[in-house]
C-alpha cells in the first residue's frame, strides 16, 4: 500500500492561519453554544413537555435533517455562482437564529414546530459549505489541516459549553424552556453580528468563469474524495447508537447519557487542532486512516473483553480521536483538490455524500440490531470500518 506524500506543499505553520479562520471559528463557537443548548433540551421539550413519543421525535429529526441535505448543495452552488460565500453563510446563520424565536412562537403546534425545526436545519445546511470554503480560501494549502483543526476545536468548545449553558438557564429560570430559547436566540444573533463585522469574504476574480457542477464530478480526484466521504458516512453508525449500546451494556442510568457526548466532544476539541497540525506534517491521509483504526476498535470494544470504567473511558477517548482524525482532516484533504471557483459546491457535494450515506448507515444499523443482534451489528460495523480503511487508502493513496 502506497500511502501519501499526497500533500506536502508549502507550509507556514501556525502563522499560516489568517484572522479570517479565527473569526469564522469564533462565529462557529458562538453559534454552537446557541444550537447545542437547544439540541440538549429539544428532545426533553418535545417528549416530556409536549408528550410526543420519542420515536416520533427521532423520525422528525431524521427526516428534516435528510431533507435539508439538498438545500446544502443548492447553497453551495449559489455561493459559488454569486461569488458571495459570506452572504450565503450569513443567511444560513441568520435563519437558524430566527428559528430559535420560532420555537417560542410555535407553542404546542406540531406543524409549526416542524416548520421551525426545518428552518433551523436548513440554516445549518446552507451555512456549512460556504463557511468551509471560506476557510480553504483563506489559508495556504499546506496549513489546511491546522486551519480546520483550529476551527473544529473552537466549534467543539461551543458544542461542549452549549448543554452546560442550557442547564444553567433551566436552573435559573425554574425549568423554563422559553428562557432557553430566548437565550439561545440572543447568542445566535450575536454570532451573526460577529460574522458580519469580522469575517472577510474571499471573492474570486470574476473573469475566471469555469464550467459548473457537472464538470466537477468529471474530475477523477473529486470523484475519489466524494466516494471517500460517502464511505466515511457509511461506516459511522451514529453517536446515539454508540452511547445506547454502552448504556445497555453497563446498565447506566439515563442521567449519564449526556456525559458520554460531553466527554467525546471534550476529547474532540482538545485533539482537533494538534491532529490537524500532525496531518499537515505527516500527511492527511495517514491521520484519516488512523481515525478509521480508532473507530474499528470502538466497534469491537462495544462487545469486547473490557467492562466498567475502563470500557467507558476508552470508548469515549477513541471515539473522540476518530472524530478529530476525520472530520476537519477530510475537508483539508478535499480543499486543494477542488477548483477555487467551485469550492463551495464541491465541499457541499462531499458533505452531502457523507450525510446521505450516514442516514443510510444508521437505518441499516438499526435494522441489523433489531433483526440480528447488537453484537452481530457492531461486528459487521467493525468489518465495514476496516474495509473503508483499505478502500480509502486505495482511493486517496494514489497520485492523480
Amino acid at each position: 500500500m502506497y500511502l501519501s506524500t499526497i500533500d506536502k506543499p508549502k507550509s507556514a505553520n501556525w502563522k499560516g492561519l489568517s484572522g479570517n479562520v479565527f473569526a469564522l471559528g469564533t462565529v462557529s463557537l458562538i453559534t454552537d453554544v446557541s444550537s447545542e443548548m437547544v439540541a440538549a433540551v429539544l428532545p426533553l421539550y418535545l417528549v416530556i413537555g409536549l408528550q410526543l413519543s420519542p420515536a416520533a421525535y427521532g423520525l422528525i429529526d431524521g427526516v428534516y435533517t435528510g431533507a435539508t441535505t439538498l438545500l446544502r448543495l443548492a447553497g453551495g452552488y449559489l455561493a459559488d455562482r454569486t461569488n458571495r460565500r459570506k452572504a450565503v453563510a450569513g443567511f444560513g446563520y441568520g435563519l437558524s437564529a430566527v428559528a430559535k424565536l420560532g420555537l417560542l412562537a410555535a407553542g404546542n403546534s406540531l406543524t409549526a414546530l416542524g416548520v421551525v425545526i426545518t428552518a433551523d436545519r436548513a440554516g445549518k445546511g446552507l451555512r456549512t459549505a460556504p463557511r468551509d470554503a471560506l476557510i480553504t480560501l483563506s489559508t495556504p494549502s499546506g496549513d489546511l489541516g491546522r486551519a480546520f483543526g483550529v476551527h473544529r476545536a473552537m466549534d467543539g468548545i461551543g458544542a461542549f459549553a452549549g448543554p452546560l449553558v442550557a442547564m444553567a438557564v433551566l436552573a435559573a429560570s425554574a425549568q423554563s424552556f422559553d428562557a432557553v430559547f430566548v437565550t439561545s436566540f440572543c447568542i445566535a444573533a450575536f454570532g451573526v453580528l460577529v460574522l458580519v463585522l469580522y469575517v472577510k469574504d474571499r471573492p474570486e476574480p470574476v473573469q475566471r468563469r469555469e464550467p459548473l457542477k457537472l464538470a466537477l464530478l468529471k474530475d477523477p480526484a473529486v470523484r475519489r474524495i466524494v466516494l471517500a466521504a460517502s464511505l466515511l458516512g457509511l461506516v459511522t453508525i451514529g453517536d446515539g447508537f454508540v452511547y445506547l449500546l454502552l448504556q445497555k451494556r453497563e446498565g447506566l442510568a439515563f442521567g449519564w447519557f449526556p456525559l458520554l457526548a460531553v466527554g467525546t466532544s471534550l476529547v474532540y476539541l482538545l485533539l482537533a487542532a494538534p491532529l490537524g497540525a500532525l496531518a499537515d506534517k505527516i500527511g492527511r491521509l495517514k491521520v484519516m486512516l488512523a481515525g478509521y483504526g480508532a473507530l474499528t476498535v470502538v466497534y469491537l470494544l462495544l462487545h469486547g473483553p473490557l467492562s466498567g470504567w475502563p470500557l467507558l473511558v476508552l470508548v469515549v477517548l477513541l471515539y473522540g480521536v476518530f472524530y478529530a482524525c476525520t472530520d476537519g482532516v477530510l475537508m483539508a484533504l478535499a480543499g486543494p483538490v477542488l477548483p477555487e471557483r467551485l469550492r463551495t459546491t464541491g465541499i457541499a457535494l462531499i458533505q452531502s455524500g457523507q450525510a446521505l450515506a450516514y442516514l443510510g448507515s444508521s437505518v441499516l444499523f438499526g435494522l441489523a440490531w433489531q433483526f440480528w443482534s447488537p453484537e452481530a451489528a457492531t461486528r459487521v460495523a467493525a468489518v465495514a470500518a476496516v474495509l473503508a480503511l483499505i478502500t480509502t487508502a486505495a482511493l486517496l493513496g494514489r497520485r492523480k
Partner: protein
Amino acid sequence: MNKRLLITLTAAVLLGGVAVGYTALSGAAPDAAQSVTTGAGPRLMVLSNGKLSTVSHAGGSREVTGQSCDRAYEAAGTISCLRPVGALKASELAVLDRDLKELRTIPLTGFPNRTRVSASGRMVAWTLFVDGHSYAANGFSTSTGILDTKTGTLVTSLEEFAVEGMPQRPVDTNYWGVTFTADDNRFYATMSTGGHRYLLEGDFAGRTVKPLTDLDDVECPSLSPDGTRIAYKKAVGGDPQKGWRVSVLDLKSREITELAETRSVDDQPAWVDDRTVAYGIQRDDGLNDVWAVPADGTGTPAILVPEASSPAPIS
C-alpha cells in the same frame, strides 16, 4: 476599527441583558401554591403543564404548585410523584405529604408512566417504561414497583414475586398499572405474556401474583372506591394497535361494560366517586384534557379539567 468594537460591545450588552432579564423573570414564578389544598367541597389533584395542581370539581380557580411531576396520584394525604428524567438526572419517585414535604425518594430507571396510592395513603406503586415508550408497539418493556410507606418495605420490581400456577415466570412477562384494595396488601395489575394481557391479583405480604387467565385484555386496572368494580382500558378487538376502550369490569358477575367514551384512551382511569371515571386524553396540539364519563355505560363524556393530566380525587 474602534467603531466595529463599539458595535460588538453594545450588541453583547444588549443581547446579554435580554437573555439574563428574560431568564430572571421566568425564574420568579408568580406566587406558586405551597401545598395541595383540601378546602371546601370535593377537589381533584391534577398535573397542569407538569405541575401539581388542585382544582374543585365545579371548575373554579386552579392552584398550581411549583412541584414538577410526569405522573402523580394522591390519597389520604400521601402524594406520589414520578419525576421526569432530567438532563443530568435519572427519573425518581418522590413520596410527598400535602405540604409537598419530601418523605422519601426512590431512584428509578426509565420513563415515568403510571402511579397509584392505596386509599389509606399507605401503599405506593409505579410503572416505568424501560424499553420502548408505548403499549401499542411491540417489544416494549416495563418495570413496576411497590413501596409500603408504613414499614418501608420496597419491592423494586414485581418480577421478584412468585407467579401462582406457573412453576417459572415466563421470560416475556411485563407488569404494569397497579391498583390497591382496601386492605393495603392485595392489589390488581396487568400481566402480559405470550400476547395476553391478563388481570392479575397480587399479595404483597405473600410476595405472589396470580394471573386471572379468564380475564384477558385488562390493562391499567383501577379499583372502584367500593371495591366491587375495575375500570380499565380494553384493547379494541384484542389489538392494542387499534386503540383502547375504557371499560368497567364487575368483579363478582364478571360482566364487562363499555363506557360511553368512544375515543381511544391510553391512561389508567381514576374513580372520581363510585359513579364516575376520569382519564386524560391528548389533543391534536399535544396538550391533555381530563375527561369524565359515567361508570355504567350511560351518558356522554365531558371535560372535567381542561389542560390537565393525571387526575386523582383528593380524599
